[in-house]
């Protein structure tokens, strides 16, 4: 079928219907035994542009979708993806729909789609989004934007769906893994700028994900995406390195004062109210620093789970870990400026301890790839810490 014929048939239809029809046509075009030709690809892109996203009309004029139409389109895409049985087909269509790097309009639709999928716990869509994240690179601008939008929707605007979110780790682990990787790029990244801390509910959810599923972090790597034939799979980056960053830096960045504010207001005691004999267990929500401790433990478990029986280690990049050192050193410099003794500074020591623990577990389980000696050298420049010293010494000998 030629392009003009295809367009002719589709043009008979009004907007929502034409999009639906177009998706089917695209599937026919792109999915086959062999990789599609470049002409086929061009036709598919043309159809997508005109009939799915309605970017241009038949005369090539620019037009767009209003928010309601966007919603209709998302509904259609969602329906289509959910109905799709073959992962490869699904991923192929999805990537061709949203693969274009620069289009903000598409990105917006994608954000809504992703957010909706999270809302509705729609696994097929989430998995597709997970693949997209991976293919785009978790730290790419588009991915970060998408992740930011999802966080805004689900951790700022709608804060009532924490349970549903927590269950995502089991239904769509690849998506969650990539999602966390991207999130770690967003927060606590730079000491120069104002310290941007993750919101507490996001931290809670991530902690719960990591803590309850030690294999989660590796899931993107363990389950390679079903990609269209001929495409180049991008290496999945685990969130472990980023999470180690978080846990290590948390003692330095969290102010004790802000924690104090969260003390709940005492209930007014009624006179005839007898103190209950059975004390209910303190169901108090964990404070932020406690959450980080729990997350740290979760990360250490995950590291242990990241041991691979065969092949090179893939879990944690040594360079990535080494990137911690300038941040800690900057903090230590500040302390020195105020004349604080580094050995007795509990926050700093806490941070160094955590770094030491993570490095030790990672090295011991063979999760670290890249230049390990560089990493050890970098760690050696950190302020004095006993655990770290032992670890460095032992591993330097073993190399």
């Amino acid at each position, binding site marked *: 079928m030629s392009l003009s014929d295809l367009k002719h048939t589709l043009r008979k239809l009004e907007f929502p219907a034409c999009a639906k029809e177009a998706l089917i046509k695209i599937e026919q075009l792109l999915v086959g035994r062999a990789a599609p030709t470049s002409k086929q690809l061009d036709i598919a892109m043309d159809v997508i542009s005109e009939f799915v996203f309605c970017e241009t009309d038949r005369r090539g004029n620019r037009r767009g979708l209003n928010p309601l139409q966007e919603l209709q389109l998302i509904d259609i895409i969602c329906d289509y993806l959910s109905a799709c049985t073959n992962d490869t087909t699904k991923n192929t269509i999805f990537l061709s729909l949203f693969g274009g790097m620069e289009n903000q309009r598409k990105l917006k639709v994608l954000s809504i789609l992703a957010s909706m999928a999270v809302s509705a*716990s729609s696994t097929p869509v989430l998995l597709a989004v997970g693949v997209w994240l991976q293919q785009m690179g978790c730290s790419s601008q588009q991915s970060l934007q998408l992740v930011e939008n999802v966080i805004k929707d*689900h951790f700022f605007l709608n804060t009532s769906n924490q349970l549903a979110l927590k269950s995502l780790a089991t239904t769509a682990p690849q998506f969650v893994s990539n999602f966390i990787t991207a999130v770690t790029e967003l927060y606590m990244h730079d000491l120069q700028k104002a310290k941007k801390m993750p919101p507490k509910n996001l931290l809670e959810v991530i902690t719960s994900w990591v803590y309850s599923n030690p294999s989660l972090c590796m899931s993107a790597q363990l389950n390679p995406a079903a990609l269209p034939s001929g495409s180049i799979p991008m290496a999945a980056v685990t969130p472990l390195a980023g999470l180690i960053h978080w846990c290590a830096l948390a003692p330095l960045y969290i102010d004790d004062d802000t924690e104090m504010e969260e003390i709940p207001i005492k209930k007014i005691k009624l006179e005839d109210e007898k103190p209950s004999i059975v004390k209910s267990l303190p169901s108090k929500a964990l404070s932020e620093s406690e959450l980080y401790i729990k997350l740290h433990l979760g990360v250490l478990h995950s590291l242990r789970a990241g041991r691979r029986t065969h092949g090179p280690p893939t879990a944690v990049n040594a360079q990535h870990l080494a990137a911690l050192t300038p941040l800690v050193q900057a903090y230590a410099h500040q302390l020195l400026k105020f004349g604080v003794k580094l050995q007795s500074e509990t926050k700093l020591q806490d941070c160094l301890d955590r770094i030491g623990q993570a490095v030790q577990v990672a090295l011991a389980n063979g999760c670290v790839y890249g230049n390990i000696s560089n990493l050890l050298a970098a760690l050696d420049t950190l302020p004095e810490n006993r655990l770290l010293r032992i670890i460095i010494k032992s591993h330097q000998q073993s190399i």
Partner: protein
Amino acid sequence: MNTQNKQTALSADLNNFIYGVSRRNFQNAPELTKIGISLLRNFPAARDAVLEYFAMVFHDAVNVSINQTDYESDSSANGSLESVSMIGPELCSMGESWAPFIAPWCITLIMDIATEKSNLPNATLQNTEPVRVLLDITTQNLTLLNAEERAKCIDMMLDCRACSWAVGWVGRAEPALVAPRALALGADAARAVLAHLANHPPALYHVRAALVDLFQEAIKEDSKADKKRDVIPYLLNLASKSDIVLKALTQDIALTLTDEVMDRLCVVCATHRHSGAWEGVGPASLVALLLRSDVHCFLLLLKHAQRNVFCRQLLEYLLQKVEYESLFPDSNLPLVMSAAEEINIVREKLLTGNQLEQYSIARILILVCYNLPSEFVSTISYLLQCARSDTTLALLVRVVSGALAMHSPADGPDVHADVERYQNLINTGVEYALRDAMMADTQIKKCFVEGTGTKDEKTYLHHFCLNIVKLLRWERSGVRCAWAARAVAARVGRVGAALRARAALLRERPPATAAALADMPTCHALAQVLDNVDLTGTKSAPPSVEVILKVIQATVQYFFRCLHETDIMAKIRGVQTASRLLRKLCLHSKLARAVALRDLLETAMFREDKVFGSRSDVTNNVASPKDWNGEELLIYMNQKHGPITQLTQSHTSVFHAGIIGKGVRKRSDAGRGAPPVLALDNELLMGALMACMDGNSGIVEGSTSISLLLVELVSPDVMYNGLPWPDEDFTKQVSIERELYMRSAVERCGVSRAALRRTARARPALCLSSALLRAAAASLLHRAHRHTQSAEMVRELAALVELLSVMTLGQLLPHPLSHILELAPELTPSEIVQVLRDCIWNYTRDHVPSPALFSCDSTGLHWRDPSTCKPPPTYTDTLRMIIQKRISKLGHMYPIMFLNLEKDS
């Protein structure tokens, strides 16, 4: 399972929503709205779509409610309206994280609606339910935004011309943000926004702050002068268009335009005066602004007019403009109204300001008074009380005559009614001033508490009086219309009452008030006022009887207070004032005279008798009053003796000689003669009495009433006994007690004796006190021969001499008998008795001393022609024989008494 359910529910919602929305029908809007709200909650990513749908609903709802003319239709019947009522609370309560999405949406929507409906009146649009809901949502969400986003939103709104009302409304939540931004707009747009903003009182503060900031910024000294060149003209232009801006700018103007600011402003003006924008704000527009501003601006202008020529010119321009504008009926100039509101400050400035201020304020006050009669009254009252110098008093004259002049156009149809109305207002003003001054005197004042009282020690009433007197004098000397005189004349009763209250001895004198100061200065001042009032009734209606009585009583009281003055000059001056007053009052009113005489005499004889040296007629000096039981009292015992003791004045006899069992009454005044007649106080009193009798035939009439009064006051029971003298025996048997009492009463009282003498002069008047003369004669008859002791004799003789002199003076004893006076000192007691009985008593008995004896001659003078009333020899023989018998001693009298008589006959 749970997630599965949820997923299906969500996609069902989504499908329903998409399907419903695509139908573009608002019948099912409520359901869709519900779905939309739940989508917002569960599927935040769909917010754009949902909000878009809500915007459509709002548009529709606005249309519906604008076209909904009849109120009967139920608003909930319409789907859109119902949806709106659901959306409102929902979007208001979404919370902080939603605000960045909702607020811009709201603002865009408002702008859309406003632009779409810009042909409708703002009020209609604002009052529709959907718009109200929308504004609520906006306000609510704006408050949740952080400052930066909020400012962005407000800027968004300000860019839209059609929705200044919305800015004003929403800006109430954030006036501090809106007000300065609005000022960055053009004058018209800013006016609209600020007008809406100012409906919310707390926002006014921010509007003012923004304006003042802008102004301060404009005059700040820095390099960007050129950029700020147009700010001040802009502000003035804005003020000329907006009352709110004007009000905000002029509020506390004195704080804004301090002296330094003024200096700086002068510099700025000098630099920019000739640039384009400044041309539009010349003096004319400034005056127009000032007309609308409040009086504080005017006062500030006055202050600067002292130094600044431009201000002075502006002031003059302004005053002329105000005066001109005020001539139109129903002119409601804010400046004048504000002056009326702040009248206290204005008046104070009038008193304390410099000349320019005083004269300018007087001009404003004239207009205030012209517009508001109540202020006219209070201004008069205030100035009368507070003026302390000629200048301020002159200002009062100026204000009053200015207001009068404005009010009585000479060609008006009801000039008189108008003039009368104004005279009434002035009268009220004077009355209020008097009342307030009196009240001020009774109030505790700080200066008295601290002991730093006024140096002149004058009461407020005193000041008031001084002012009035000054005014009255001016009016007398000048050609001005006599409004003050008329007013005081109309309220003379009040002044009288004030004087009376002041002169009363028993007066409350609370400490630390002006009332505790000495009375007399104030009394003198009040008397001065009364003295200066014209009471003749020639220029205005004569005072009523009641008023006259009040003033008379007050004057009499004042007179007696003056007698107590220690400073002789003050005393004489006061007495003279009182006498003048009495003369003035009595000249036209017989009633006044009667009252005055009675009051004077009564007070002199009974209440103030000590001043005149009189002694109380009965002094019981018997020691230790005993507890008498009823039967023992002499009065009861006497009653048992029959009718003779129950005669008139018999009760006095009880004490006359003493108390049975206690011996003869001790005479405390033994050795002291009767009080002198020729004392200063007595003469002053006589002067006052004579003052009452001024005028034609006044003296005779007055004296007549004096003599009647004397009889009444000495012994009321003989008032109606008539003039005749009874038989000598009758007095001995019946009335001797009374006669004795009457004689002693008269004798002890210098006043009555002096008065008798005066009456004797005014010829027939003495006849009417014949009862008193009779009493004296009878007692002399009775007692003269008994007394042998020289002291007693001397007294009796003195009494005789006095009796004779009075009777002779009154022409009751014609020619030969009149010379008994000269003989009397030489006669022995028995001779005296003889002469008394035969010559005086019998003659008077036979020739009843009645006014009929006196004939009236052509000059109106009453007198008894000696040639026609020669006493028959029966009455003179005794005398003749006595003289003949003692010719050696009394011979020189014989020819005078008898020879001439014979020659004549």
